[in-house]
């Protein structure tokens, strides 16, 4: 875990309201697992909090993360130009553990796809990914070239404007041709993860399932206890430090 000053290599729009920023680190940050995230400054003194963003791609000392324009901070970030310097703290969180797994079902929605892409990129040489990805509409579809590293890719949209009409959870459950996965990994809006948990339970699906959660964060390293989620045992877990990846059975969604 290091707090470094990075140089912006590129910062481009990849879909409606979605940007991808690539940052060159001054030194290696060590291994970055799919599902881990960075805390990135917006480059603006008025915004004191860094933005926690899931890593999408690592190539040498270049790290790419994607973000949605949500408020003044991300708008400011979208104005960063090649050569600008931004502070980054990384790698943060636990990431997806795929040890011993071969066939992995990937369920992603909207901006939740980025940590899933990092995971697919990391392991696609020796594992097979069956990906079910939902977007709001065709303007939100992005990074299909990365998603195509999956053994099988199904893209759906809420309005049917790209791929079939539907959502990622339904697309997964309705695919009867897929081999039985030994792991499900998922990231997306809270409602998607909630529905996934309900459906897995209703259908008695026992396949282990890991979900990556999102929450507003302070420090990003587990010290401030701002970004907690409720566990099924009644305790709190820190999304930034104990997660963001949790076994779906361990957390309330």
């Amino acid at each position, binding site marked *: 875990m290091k707090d470094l000053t990075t140089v912006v290599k590129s910062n481009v729009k990849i879909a409606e309201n979605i940007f991808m920023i690539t940052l060159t680190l001054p030194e290696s940050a060590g291994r970055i697992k799919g599902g881990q995230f960075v805390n990135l400054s917006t480059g603006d*003194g008025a915004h*004191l*909090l860094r933005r926690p963003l899931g890593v999408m791609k690592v190539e040498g000392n270049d790290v790419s993360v994607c973000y949605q324009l949500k408020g003044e901070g991300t708008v400011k970030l979208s104005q960063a130009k090649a050569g600008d310097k931004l502070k980054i*703290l990384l790698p943060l969180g636990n990431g997806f553990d795929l040890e011993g797994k071969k066939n992995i079902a990937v369920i992603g929605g909207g901006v939740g796809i980025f940590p899933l892409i990092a995971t697919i990129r990391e392991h696609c040489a020796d594992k097979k990914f069956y990906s079910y990805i939902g977007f709001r509409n065709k303007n939100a579809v992005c990074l299909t070239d990365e998603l195509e590293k999956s053994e099988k890719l199904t893209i759906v949209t809420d309005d049917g404007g790209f791929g079939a009409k539907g959502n990622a959870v339904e697309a997964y459950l309705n695919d009867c041709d897929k081999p039985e996965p030994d792991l499900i990994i998922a990231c997306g809006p809270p409602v998607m993860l909630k529905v996934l948990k309900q459906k897995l339970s209703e259908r008695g699906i026992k396949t282990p399932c890991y979900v990556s959660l999102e929450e*507003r964060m*302070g420090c990003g390293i*587990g*010290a401030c*206890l701002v970004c907690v989620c409720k566990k099924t045992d009644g*305790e709190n877990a820190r999304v930034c430090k104990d997660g963001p990846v949790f076994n779906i059975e361990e957390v309330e969604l």
Partner: protein
Amino acid sequence: MANLSVNICGVAFKNPLIAASGTFGFGREYNEIYDISQIGGISTKGMTLQPRLGNPVPRIAEGSGVILNAVGLQNPGVDHFIKYDLPFLKEKGIVIVANVAGKSFDEYGEICAKLNGLVDFVELNISCPNVKAGGMAFGIKPESIEKVTRVAKSSLSKTPLMVKLSPNVESIPVNAQAAERGGADCVSLINTLTGMVIDIERRRPLIANNTGGVSGAGIKPIAVRMVYEAAHAVSIPVIGMGGITCGKDVIEFMMAGAKAVQVGTANFTNANAMPEIIAQTNGWLDAHGIKDINEIIDTVRLNG
């Protein structure tokens, strides 16, 4: 290299920078980024007798130059701290300030008794704006400040008592004097200012608790004024905090009368903030030919 060490209530700090309560946990996480033995001290996450789960999320929001938080004193309880975190902090050789909160006068006494002789200071959190019972209820009126201080002090025969003052009050000098009368060995200020941020699209406050404590660079002028007022109202030492982000801010608070400072929100903006601020503070002193940081304490002179 100037002398940065300060001495407060007989406790030696290698430098005057203390990590502020609630921003630094019990030190373990920041110690993964840098060796925290470099800092002067740590004020722990606010602790209660029993573990607490705290408030619902979201617990944090931003304003221009500030943040708001409403964690609601989530903590593992004082017994867990004594068993699990205290040995780790002792090894680090930094000044340990145990920040504590109670729901009643008796609870403040009980928690202080558990910590007596184990830590370097106990800091009374009587000004947490984010919990309904206790916390701020004790920190508004001078009468209750004096009483809760007296109760805590009576349980602390071996450990100096620091009383953390709220800015959400009528008079800082009156409240600082109330803490001094109650037996406080020093006071720290300011805790956060109560604020609200509204998501205008949803017409709802951004924080689940509706209101939160405002901290960060934007509150610094208010904090400096209040530190000046407190330092000139009492004869016990004053520890200043509120929006410190760089070495010049440390100098400013100390010129206003603080003998040490606490750094909180800056840790979120820059995980290496405290070591960097220590170096900047030394740099300023060197550049001004000042050999000892103690020479600048309480040296501001008011205009005509």
